[in-house]
């Protein structure tokens, strides 16, 4: 329809030109037609899909569509799997139509730039361990948007590979598998650049958000909870930022590995309990920042292994089993202006030496005094207790926790430090907590 209008408008316009006598020379007329034709004729149209519409299936609408068209899908259940989108179209669901993979197939595969998918419920993709079946898979594309969709009971949810400049926003994903091996990741990115993952809610997948070989991307304001393994899993992904996210009750917390230049700020890491669960597991991370995050009630709030030049600034560590576990192979890390409140252990380490700096933190365990009233304790604080040092070497010794024997040990070590790292001290402990 709109196409025909376009041509009409175009002819009218041309007629005006001719009648005013502006164009007398036919060569320039041809030139102008040639110039205007592609832009004018290629008017985008809307294709309607639904049981009472011209197109009954999305597949037929897709094959009839051209680049720039919009496909409007009315509510209903569409048992169409393996939909291939190889044109730059907008696919929009009205009143949340359902696309199902019937527990066997993938649902949608996007292989064109500039595709938008909005307003669907994707459900029941089949398990496939080799092809990683996903509700939506994007491969080698740019400028695509996946927004306001819901996903339930899929193997993988949104799977992006070799893509760039795409946006995944306002989606909700939920899976119900109970075993990690039978569950895929919620939002999975592999070899991508400059992506934005924002305002999504992910629950019950293997890893909520998964980044592997991703560069310069942002993860913002997502809620990732009750996933089987990690809320966020981040590997080999340099120069990415994640901020204002909420990670809670994930099987093993959040893992950030083998990466440079990560900026982690204003996130909440909460309730990650278990022998191998970490609020934040850092392995081989360098030149990164951890700023203004909340770590609440985790078995271990942050675990540092092989980390260099990481700045941990202005975070709150509240009621964790151990706030920081710092392995001997981590160097030149700075911990400053953090609040350590009510943790069973503030810092655990497996080394008698430490090449890291702790400065100006607030420690609720600090029992020093401040005679000159400058807000800074007059005697340094030693966050590593003898007992935390012992359990780092021998985990079962934890059974002695809170016993009188251990208290005596700690006091003795405090007076005559011999085993705990001498350099791991906070020489300027703050008397009151940071607000």
């Amino acid at each position, binding site marked *: 329809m709109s196409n025909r209008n376009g041509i009409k408008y175009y002819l009218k316009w041309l007629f005006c030109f001719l009648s005013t006598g502006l164009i007398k020379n036919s060569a320039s007329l041809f030139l102008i037609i040639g110039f205007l034709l592609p832009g004018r004729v290629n008017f985008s149209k809307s294709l309607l899909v639904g049981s009472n519409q011209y197109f009954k299936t999305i597949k037929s609408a897709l094959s009839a569509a051209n680049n720039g068209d919009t496909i409007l899908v009315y509510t209903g259940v569409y048992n169409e799997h393996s939909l291939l989108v190889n044109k730059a179209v907008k696919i929009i669901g009205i009143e949340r139509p359902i696309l199902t993979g019937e527990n066997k197939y993938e649902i949608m595969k996007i292989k064109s730039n500039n595709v938008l998918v909005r307003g669907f419920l994707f459900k029941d993709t089949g398990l496939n361990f080799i092809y*990683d079946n996903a509700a939506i898979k994007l491969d080698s594309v740019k400028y695509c948007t996946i927004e306001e969709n819901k996903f339930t009971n899929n193997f993988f949810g949104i799977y992006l590979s070799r893509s760039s400049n795409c946006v995944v926003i306002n989606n909700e994903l939920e899976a119900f598998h109970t*075993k*990690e091996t039978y569950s895929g990741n919620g939002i999975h990115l592999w070899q991508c650049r400059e992506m934005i993952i924002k305002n999504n809610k992910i629950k019950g997948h293997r890893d909520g958000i998964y980044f592997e070989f991703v560069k310069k991307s942002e993860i913002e304001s997502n809620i990732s909870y009750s996933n089987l393994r990690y809320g966020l899993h981040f*590997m080999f992904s340099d120069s990415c930022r994640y901020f204002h996210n909420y990670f809670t009750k994930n099987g093993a917390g959040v*893992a950030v590995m083998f990466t440079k230049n990560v900026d982690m700020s204003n996130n909440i890491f909460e309730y990650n309990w278990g022998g*191998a669960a970490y609020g934040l597991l850092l392995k081989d991370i360098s030149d990164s920042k951890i700023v203004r995050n909340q770590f609440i009630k985790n078995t271990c709030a942050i675990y540092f292994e092989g980390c260099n030049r990481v700045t941990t600034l202005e975070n709150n560590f509240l009621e964790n089993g151990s706030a920081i576990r710092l392995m001997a192979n981590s160097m030149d890390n700075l911990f400053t202006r953090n609040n350590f409140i009510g943790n069973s252990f503030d810092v655990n380490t497996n080394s008698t030496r430490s090449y890291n700096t702790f400065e100006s933190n607030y420690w609720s365990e600090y029992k020093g005094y401040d005679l000159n009233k400058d807000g800074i304790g007059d005697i340094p604080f030693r966050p590593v207790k003898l007992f935390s040092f012992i359990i780092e070497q021998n985990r079962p010794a934890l059974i002695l926790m809170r016993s009188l024997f251990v208290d005596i040990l700690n006091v003795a070590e405090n007076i005559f430090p011999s085993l705990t790292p001498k350099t791991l001290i906070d020489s300027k402990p703050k008397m009151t907590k940071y607000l």
Partner: protein
Amino acid sequence: MKIFISIAMALLIMFNIVACQSGPEPIAYGEDNCANCMMTISDPKYGAELVSDKEKVFKFDSIECLADYSTKVDVKTIKSMWVTDFESKGNFLNAHDAQFLRSDNLKSPMGLNLSAHKNHEKINSVKTEFGGDVLSWNELVNYVKSKWN
């Protein structure tokens, strides 16, 4: 009679001891952690194990983690190394007998995309389907070294 029973018991115990051969033990996917990268092991196509001279079993989420770990420890402390057979999940192959495929279409947990196969026929059929190239264990270790160090 009592003697018979005690002899039988003794034999049973002996058999038990003999039966306790060192070797790989099943990986509890979703629970065990990789000894190299700390990740929870979750993909049953790629798990691997190292048995030390003291019979301690170290588990890995991927073949590349096993290879990396094996270069970091004293060779004398390694008794045997095992990799999961890609075709029959849960079965282990000795790392030195297995054939390895590096294919970007088979994504392993640590990103080097290595999988282990039983023999020539198996690996060739997988290779024709997914592409990639075949490596021996030693080539694989060198490849992991070059990628990660």
